[in-house]
């Protein structure tokens, strides 16, 4: 069996989500190749070639792939799939965007956000915001899979895969990149951080969010948020943790002024240690918290920062 893993990268750095996806692919058994699609991808390819257990790294270098637009990714991947039995990619927004296109073109049903590999055709995935776990067996000849990376350990490094450049793809004519507004931050990325400090509606305003950020900086943590905090404009959309935002599983997750709706829990309940600070002692977040502090966040958070 041959498996293709699509690399997560920003044209400069290879992301850890790739290593985790390789672990999921390796659990299916077979040869694992990595596809790096982007512009100026030499360094990313070299990094991918070091991942343990990888046979070959395929590179495709073209301006139309700089932002991995869905139509362009489909055009690159679908022809490649004649050589592969399965394709896996992290379930981040970049790959969630085009993987269903690949599946539809191959006439197979995508298996989204898997958290477990039972065999080469059977997988575990959360449904209903993680309130149930479904084990599904695919009868499709090829498997198209996105991987919930928080559920897999990163593959190690020490390999030396071969590399190969693919021909330039045709640029799609019906979609074009116009611009982007990326959230600038020196903090660790949410998905990869060891500690995440998240704020909710209880924080009250974007100005007040400074106390959350200040605590996060003291801990070297990433900052997250509930949907309510994002909707209210306290923080940008990419801070949202939950069923329909990002999934995180850090060593320590601190939820501040967050009630603990099922949609929020879906994105953080696999964290190792959960701390909740909330003034309502009946808030559902306390049902999943290892350590709960019933307190006014405006007093407790600065106190916590000072005590570190």
């Amino acid at each position: 069996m041959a498996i293709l893993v699509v690399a997560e990268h920003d044209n400069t750095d290879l992301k850890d989500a790739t290593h985790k996806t390789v672990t999921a692919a390796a659990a299916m058994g077979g040869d694992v190749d990595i596809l790096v699609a982007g512009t100026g991808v030499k360094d990313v390819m070299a990094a991918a070639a070091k991942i343990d257990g990888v046979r070959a790294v395929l590179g495709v270098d073209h301006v139309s792939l700089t932002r991995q637009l869905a139509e362009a990714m489909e055009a690159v991947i679908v022809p490649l799939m004649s050589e592969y039995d399965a394709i896996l990619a992290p379930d981040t927004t970049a790959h969630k965007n085009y993987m269903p296109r690949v599946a539809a073109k191959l006439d197979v049903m995508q298996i989204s956000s898997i958290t477990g590999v039972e065999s080469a055709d059977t997988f575990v995935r959360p449904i209903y915001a993680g309130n149930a776990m479904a084990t599904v067996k695919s009868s499709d000849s090829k498997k198209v899979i996105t991987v919930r990376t928080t559920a897999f350990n990163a593959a190690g490094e020490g390999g030396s895969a071969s590399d190969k450049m693919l021909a330039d793809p045709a640029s799609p004519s019906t979609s074009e990149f116009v611009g982007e507004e990326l959230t600038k931050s020196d903090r660790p990325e949410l998905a990869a951080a060891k500690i995440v400090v998240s704020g909710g509606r209880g924080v009250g305003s974007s100005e007040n969010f400074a106390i959350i950020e200040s605590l996060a900086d003291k801990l070297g943590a990433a900052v997250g948020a509930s949907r309510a905090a994002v909707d209210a404009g306290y923080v940008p959309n990419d801070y949202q943790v939950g069923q329909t935002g990002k999934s995180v599983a850090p060593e320590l997750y601190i939820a501040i002024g967050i009630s603990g709706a099922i949609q929020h829990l879906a994105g953080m309940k696999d964290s190792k240690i959960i701390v909740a600070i909330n003034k309502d002692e009946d808030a559902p977040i306390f049902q999943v918290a290892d350590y709960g502090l019933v307190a006014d966040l405006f007093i407790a958070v600065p106190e916590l920062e000072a005590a570190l």
Partner: protein
Amino acid sequence: MKVLVPVKRVLDYNVKARVKADQSGVDLSNVKMSMNPFDEISVEEAVRLKEAGTATEAVVVSIGPAKAQETIRTALAVGMDRGIHVQTDEDLEPLAIAKILKAIAEEEGAQLVITGKQAIDNDYGATGSMLAALLDWPQGTFANTVETSGDSITVKREVDGGLQTVKLTLPAVVTTDLRLNEPRYARLPDIMKAKKKQIDAKTPADYGVDTAPRLTTVKVTEPAGRSAGIKVESVEALVGKLKTEGVI
């Protein structure tokens, strides 16, 4: 421009899913069902396009059991013009749904299909992009803002790093994210009026689509439980615990 919006009837977002004792699935008997929240956002966007004069007709389609008609009526009550109900008691996979929607989009001559980015029951997040691929149309997923002008649509998308804007040539598929708009509530007179709006009754066979599932559910189980820990009395106590755990 004609706009098509597919909607799905799902377990209400406020209800916690319960796994059946025989592990065959989630118990949906006697629980509140509602329109998938992302589909409410799609419907709202289509109605706004109509109100702005951009859309000439807004058609809502639901593929599901008899009760899916209620979901269609809900969309008609907030301003969709007409409904199509493709009745089936099977729980179709996104691939089969996308194939049926492709046939409908072609039959209707739709220029824009707006779907939710995911259904909150199976969480596949696949239908919109699958449909775009089957139609060979461009797509703007996870839409935060959309703007049409002439034969193109500009979509600002919610992505992991922030926001990304793409421009698509119509016809196109857009999938909605949470911040695209705030869906309105239906007013009573409109609910009454919606009862008179047309809903065409169809079946998957009318579209010649093979809906056989590709995935079989081996079992559905409860997630690994997490039990409540302890309440600490003070910030110092909390810091002490976290130091003992070795996480700070």
